[in-house]
């Protein structure tokens, strides 16, 4: 059994074991999309009280891979799909997010959308206005905020353990996700390239820790698989060095975060934080996308999905607001513009949305 499939199986078994005994309700979740993130979300839903009950794909013949094992009903008709569920989980290719999100809002369904929300801040603003006007919850799944090292790091900094943040160094160094040549992912107009797809995690995180950004300067490699460095200047005066890479051979996936403040330094490097190391003579190299070491601390995808259920229950406030998601889009957009023009991009204060 390939490693990835094995992982889903373990997660779903564990999920059934830990399912609450008759929670208040068991909302039905419909996932849109059949790619890598859809499978990750499907497994994570298993650990919640919600039920992944419907899957929307482009056609009956869409290859759904590991999603088969979850036994969700298959739909190809959006309207029928929306009627059959309580929560929409958009894991479709990025360039299709807005279209599906609008349909979900029109149907009055609380919506989770994979990051990035969209690929343009104008489109993003219009989209979150739709959700706001309809008073429908929208949660953009910036999963980094739910990962144990990152949430712990932010909590420590917020608690003042290094004083006032001065420099944030955030790196996400991976291999290029393996996709077919014709895949949406290979087309920056559809995926947004490395700034939108990979670095938006750390752009959002930098802003979560050090606040709004006034200036963005970025350089993106012209050759190779993808590599960029973005420098942010925050309103507070703090500066961030954000590095994203698809230039490594598989299965490299490294996360580095270091925050220097007026009173000290705190951070981690994923090279040193693996709680379990396995070395097999028989290798399984079937991973197509770097995901990091998610299973041994609380799985951040499970945490984020449970969080949204808590928000819908009224027991939690959204940790990633629509405005946060829109700001992350603005930062990635500014980075791409800066890479193109060679000049820093000054950001205006977000108009009170």
């Amino acid at each position: 059994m390939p490693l990835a499939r094995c992982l889903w199986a373990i997660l779903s078994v564990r999920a059934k074991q830990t399912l609450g005994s008759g929670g208040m309700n068991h909302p039905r979740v419909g996932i849109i999309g059949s790619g890598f993130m859809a499978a990750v979300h499907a497994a994570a839903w298993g650990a919640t009280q919600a039920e992944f009950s419907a899957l929307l794909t482009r056609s009956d013949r869409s290859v759904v891979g590991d999603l088969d094992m979850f036994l969700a009903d298959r739909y190809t008709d959006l309207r029928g799909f929306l009627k059959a569920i309580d929560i929409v989980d958009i894991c479709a290719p990025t360039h299709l997010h807005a279209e599906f999100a609008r349909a979900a809002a029109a149907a009055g369904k609380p919506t989770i959308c994979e990051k990035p929300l969209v690929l343009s801040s104008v489109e993003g603003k219009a989209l979150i206005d739709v959700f706001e006007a309809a008073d429908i919850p929208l949660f953009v799944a910036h999963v980094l905020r739910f990962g144990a090292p990152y949430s712990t790091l932010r909590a420590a900094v917020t608690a003042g353990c290094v004083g006032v943040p001065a420099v944030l160094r955030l790196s996400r160094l991976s291999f290029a996700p393996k996709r077919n040549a014709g895949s949406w992912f290979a087309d920056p107009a559809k995926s947004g390239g490395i700034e939108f797809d990979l670095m938006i995690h750390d752009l959002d995180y930098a802003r979560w820790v050090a606040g709004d950004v006034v200036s963005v300067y970025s350089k993106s490699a012209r050759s190779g698989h993808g590599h960029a460095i973005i420098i942010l200047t925050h309103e507070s005066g703090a500066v961030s060095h954000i590095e994203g890479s698809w230039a490594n051979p598989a299965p490299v996936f490294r996360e580095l975060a270091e925050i220097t403040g007026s009173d000290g330094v705190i951070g981690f490097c994923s090279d040193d934080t693996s709680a379990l190391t396995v070395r097999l003579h028989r290798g399984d190299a079937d991973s197509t996308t770097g995901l990091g070491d998610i299973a041994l601390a609380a799985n951040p995808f499970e945490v984020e999905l449970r969080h949204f259920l808590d928000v819908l229950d009224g027991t939690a406030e959204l940790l990633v607001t629509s405005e946060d998601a829109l700001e992350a889009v603005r930062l990635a957009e500014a980075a791409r513009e800066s890479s193109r023009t060679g000049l820093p991009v000054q950001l205006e204060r977000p108009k009170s949305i």
Partner: protein
Amino acid sequence: MSRIGLLGTADPSAETYMRALRCAGADVVGLFDGDVERGAQVGRLNGVRVLPTAESLLDEVDAVLICAETLHHRGMVELACAAGSAILCGGLLGVSVADSKFIVDLCRQQGVALMPAFPLRFDPAAQRIRDLVAIGDLGVVCALSGVNRSVMPHRSPMAGLVDRPQPEGDTMIDQVVHLADAYSWILRADPEEVYAVGNQIVHPEVTGLKTSGLVIVSYPDGVFGSIDCSFNRPAAYPARSGWALSVVGDGGTADAEPLKQHLTQFGAMRVSWVPWRADAHVLMMREFLACVSEKRPPCVTDGDGVRATRVALGARQSLGSGVPVSLSVR
């Protein structure tokens, strides 16, 4: 045994340089510092004789190490050239490109060897990275990133950097030269443009000195390299200073971080690193001493010094203006 003198002690690396010179087999004859009090203290702490004038020191030595404030480099170089003494120069060459070129031209006219002090080049990990690039194992290089950070050079008596900020501004930016030199050395390319941001959130008590800085240098064909040149390591950091650099190419990536070569010592109150890495400072001094005794030009050239100085000066300018500064040589 080569006799070496020290002109000025403002450079935070001055003590490291002196120790490395001795390890490399030199006789550190004495020092002169325009700041008499500081010079006396450094002399006492390091067991070095203090001479009353630069000229009297130059009478006794084969070569000098210039660790004065950058502003005084030119004057020191003029004296060393007059005495025919080879020069190892720390930090930036001059306070401007014109000043740096004057220094280079003068040394060339006088036939005096001028070697910029870039110890990073002598580190085995850095050399391995350069070899990997040269033989093509990393493919076409598209990006570099690096840090060269230290604790605030608060220590007495070398407080010149902190208590009396130099007229040319942010001395933190001086740390840029080492990685700027390394990047051009690895890429075999000249820098085209530089952008820098910074703040003074760490050590706000020091007047008018930025203590954290991030720099991006651009090279031909869209290649870029970032440099973190901050003075922001906390006092309890297990190393006073250190550098690391990464190279990204379409053939793979490589990281060099000599600081990793340490033992970890856990005490009652703090964690310390006990280094066992090859000492690049000593290796650099061996090259300098060999140049002096063999009367040959150094492998790190005066032109390398001007090039790195140009990046640091551009970074300082960008720090003030908020826009990238062109470094193209017209």
